[in-house]
């Protein structure tokens, strides 16, 4: 096995073994510490994956997916299923982001365990979720992809139902039933493709693999619907506000930060890659729904009166920009979607951490009961301001690139239809600014409300440790977008190549 293959296995094995170890260690705090170490080791294993053969300089015909490292083992020989993992410029940033956010969440849990259950169990579940998400991003076999996609579901359900807010059971049930519906569609879609093509290997399948037009249309419709539930794409989003609002802080961070990305990643890698003909056919519908998501999401936020719910709905709008980028099916649009994915993960992760901190301190999330935060807790207010400003897409911070270039890509696609979508999406950008400024005005300005008045101004060290990497990343990705896109050009060009 090469170093790369060892790393690929380690990225999945370390958190899996970590989860087992956390469950086995009897002492609660020691168990949580074990979890943090496992998450840290996972992050350390994901970073060097970037080294290796980037191989985009060769001649002759090449497959449209060229992993930097891959591991291809027989899994169920009787069914011709293979344990095929690989990483490339599209998946690597998401893999690192997942490992980072899980580490931050585990570290945060070391400091504070939400009410509802033992911290040990929460950390173990977080690690299991991490295995599922990382596996989804690494899988190069369609069935394996599906399996990892499903691994995430139940531990996430347990996290919401176990450690969530007052209405947690209903929200968790809605989350699991709704996304299971998506999974059923995904399963059917996967088997439509596998049955027609006779293989589940994503490297072979990317580019259509000789699937008939009818099969591609059916497969794309099924897969896109499944991923649209996960992303979520309006109007299939209504599980998300409840789940986010009720989930504990770390649950919301993982949910918004990386879990949603499984949907957009799947759309780019699986749906568009496997059924390019279907993608071309459905692109206008996808574009319209994406813009509807942007506008409806922003408008709902403008009339929203609960802090976490507002941030949850803002995800609908932001993912709308990502999906608009994908829908254009241009290299610019897909790269915008990739960086938009990462930026949303970083910024919304930070926003949920901060909203959790506000809620933990004031015991309310109602905007009407929050005001004057900058008077009593200037640092928390400053960070909330930073995160909100980053989220509204201020140029120079991470959120800008994805949103602005989704619009640019739609303009580039040309024609009245796409230009109209670009204009509406850009207007959605202004609405995004409107609701975030409304949020800041309500929460940070004015005289302190009774709930805010008794706050202590300081921040805990654990909080700063968990938030600082996200603040720095939001700034770093904004100033140096090549951090995310530096390796994506080759794979994206190849993907766009098969779309032509």
């Amino acid at each position, binding site marked *: 096995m090469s170093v790369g293959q060892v790393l690929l296995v380690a990225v999945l094995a370390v958190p899996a073994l970590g989860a087992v170890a956390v469950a086995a260690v009897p002492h609660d705090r020691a168990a949580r510490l074990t979890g943090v170490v496992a998450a840290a080791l996972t992050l350390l294993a994901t970073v060097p994956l970037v080294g290796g053969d980037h191989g985009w300089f060769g001649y002759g015909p090449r497959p449209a997916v060229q992993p930097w490292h891959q591991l291809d083992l027989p899994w169920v020989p009787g069914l011709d299923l293979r344990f095929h993992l690989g990483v490339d410029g599209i998946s690597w940033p998401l893999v690192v982001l997942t490992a980072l956010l899980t580490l931050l969440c585990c570290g945060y849990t070391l400091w504070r365990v939400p009410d509802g259950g033992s911290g040990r169990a929460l950390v173990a579940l977080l690690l299991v979720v991490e295995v599922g998400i990382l596996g989804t991003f690494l899988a190069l076999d369609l069935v394996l992809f599906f399996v990892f996609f499903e691994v995430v579901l139940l531990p996430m359900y347990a996290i919401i139902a176990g450690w969530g807010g007052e209405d947690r059971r209903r929200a968790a049930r809605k989350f699991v039933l709704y996304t299971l519906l998506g999974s059923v569609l995904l399963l059917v879609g996967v088997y439509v493709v596998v049955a027609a093509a006779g293989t589940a290997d994503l490297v072979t399948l990317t580019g259509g693999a000789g699937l008939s037009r009818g099969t591609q249309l059916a497969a794309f419709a099924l897969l896109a619907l499944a991923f649209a539930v996960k992303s979520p794409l309006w109007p299939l989003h209504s599980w998300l506000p409840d789940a986010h609002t009720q989930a504990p802080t770390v649950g919301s961070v993982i949910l918004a930060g990386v879990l949603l990305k499984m949907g957009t990643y799947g759309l780019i890698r699986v749906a568009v890659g496997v059924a390019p003909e279907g993608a071309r056919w459905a692109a206008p519908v996808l574009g319209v729904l994406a813009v509807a998501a942007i506008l409806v999401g922003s408008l709902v936020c403008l009339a929203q009166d609960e802090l976490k719910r507002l941030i949850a709905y803002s995800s609908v709008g932001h993912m709308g920009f990502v999906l608009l980028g994908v829908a254009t099916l241009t290299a610019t649009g897909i790269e915008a979607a990739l960086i938009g994915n990462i930026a949303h993960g970083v910024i919304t992760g930070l926003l949920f951490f901060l909203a959790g901190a506000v809620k933990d301190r004031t015991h309310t999330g109602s905007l009407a009961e929050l005001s004057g935060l900058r008077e009593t807790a*200037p640092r928390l207010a*400053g960070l909330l301001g930073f995160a909100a400003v980053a989220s509204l897409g201020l140029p120079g911070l991470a959120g800008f690139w994805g949103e602005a270039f989704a619009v640019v890509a739609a*303009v580039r696609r040309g024609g009245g239809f796409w230009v109209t979508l670009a*204009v509406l999406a850009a207007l959605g*950008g202004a609405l995004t600014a409107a609701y975030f400024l409304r949020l800041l005005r309500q929460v940070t*300005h004015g005289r302190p409300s009774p709930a805010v008045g008794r706050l202590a101004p300081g921040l805990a060290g654990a909080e700063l440790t968990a938030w600082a990497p996200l603040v720095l990343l939001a700034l770093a990705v904004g100033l140096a977008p090549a951090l995310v896109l530096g390796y994506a050009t080759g794979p994206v060009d190849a993907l766009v190549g098969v779309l032509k």
Partner: protein
Amino acid sequence: MSEGIGRLAPLVPLLPGLPLAAGLVGLLLPPSPRGAATGEDRARRVAIALGVAGAAGALLVALALLTRVDHPVEASTTWVDLGGLRVTLGYRLDGVAVLVATAVAAVALAVQVYSIAYLKRGPHDDVEVDHRYPPYAAQISLFTAAMLVVVVSGDLILLLVGWEVMGICSYLLIAHDRRLPEAPAAAVKAFLVTRVGDVGFLLGIALLGVSAGSFKIADVLAHPYSTGTLTAACLLLLAGVAGKSAQFPLHTWLPDAMAGPTPISALIHAATMVAAGVYAVARLFPLFERAPVALTVLGVLAAITLLLGAFAATAQDDIKRVLAWSTVSQIGYMTGALAVGSPTAALFHLLSHAAFKALLFLAAGAVIHAVGTTLMSRMGGLRRGMPVTFWCTVVGLGALAGVPPLSGFWSKDGVLAAAEAAALDGAGPTPQWVGWLVWLAGLLGVAVTAWYATRLLLRTFFGATRIPLADPHDPPALMRWPVLVLAVPAALLGLAGFWGPFIGRIFAPATEAELTDFGDSLTHLGAAVLLPLALLLAGAGVAWAGWRRDSAADPARFLGPLRPVFARAFRLDDVQHALVVRPTNALARAARTGDELGVDGLVEGSGHAAVGLGGGLATLHRAALPRAAAGVLAGALLIGLAVALIGVAS
């Protein structure tokens, strides 16, 4: 390509880099603890040092570059490549860029120094004004850096970065004063109105960049666009320009922004924010020159803005709001010059306006500091107690009204001369009627400006005092010196129009067409000067005559029934509220209701329906024995029938 500035090339990134670094470090400083504001605690001292050093460093770099740069130089490196669209990180310097950068850095330095004393708690203040001095100074530094990025940027996306960061800094700074309940709303309004304009700006940049395959300004200027694309792109850019430069109909944020501390008003009005829009059009003027439709639209908006601002300024009682509306009006002169095809005249007025408007705001701040109110109805007779402030205000107002030989006279005359040439000789790319419109509006504006400038001077500094208890005095040295220093360019900058190196730099980016149509002279002395001078005298004279009749009463009373209309600026705020804000909020509420009851209702409904259906089926299965037996028999019968039928069929 940077051989023109030789060894100074590495300095260029420092121009925005120094204030940026000062700002970022400053944001990390702890906010001064409450209650510790009597002395200068350590965080405040560090914040002061950082802010002043950042602005002074930028000013030194700008001055160093000013000595070297006379022709365009640029350098760039790839920032990121998004699917074949290259975004570059680089600068594009020419004489104008360095002149504007110098003005920005100089005003920023004056504001940083002035703020030290202005935001300091006096012994009798019952409210702490400065316990957040570190973030305040850091935000000014970021603001300065953002404007300098706009000025030197060689790429449209980089320009957009500076453009929007400036917006967010203005938002933060306008909301700084916690004693004013209206400040947060004004801050939100400032950011949102400009952001709405920026929707157009982004789309315009997208259109230009996508067609040219690059966002680099040099590539964009060199690309042969079709007329349709170019007109659309320029019109879209104008939306952003109207937002930032407070042009009708997106001007409504600027007067409200007066809720910010006075030094911030000086910063926003003189050298940064509002200047950015004019500068951006001048920077991209070769494109606008080929899109006369866009320039025509700009000309109409300029004429409306110019008069709207001037008339609104006549009826304000708040000294800062008079100055704010005068900014709207003066920017109208600049965009008017752009519209008739003379960006050089616009830039000259931009520079002199930067000097005299910064002076006026800082002097007004000294007045407000002394009397504790912004209302002119509670001032009067301050001339004796505050001679320095008085004379500096005289210089500033004289320049604003265009009294020779102060700076504003020369630069406003340049604008009027360009408009006159466009009106009478058909010079410039726009139709002749646009020239007439701008020229006539400009001339009428001169008279109105003279009227309200005179009114401001008389109401504030002359007559009997209307605040019997206070003992107004000139401000402390840290506030006095920036005002005095700014009085020099406000008075003399116009004379630079006779000085070779200045002329060379300001004309550096001028196009062939502009030079042919409007000549290469900044100053225009001739019979044409007499007309604006006569109007100036008329305007000032009418105001003075009105004041003479009753020195305690406001000359604005002569406006009669128009006074409330002017005071509320033709009620455009209400129009904006009725046409944009209320419908958007209603739409938002409808969207929320629709989403919760419609989309989510469907989901919840299907869940309830499934549960209900399951319950129904379960009830059906809970049957008494006779019915159950009948059911089983009926089932057996049906299966038997089916088997028999299939057997027959096969």
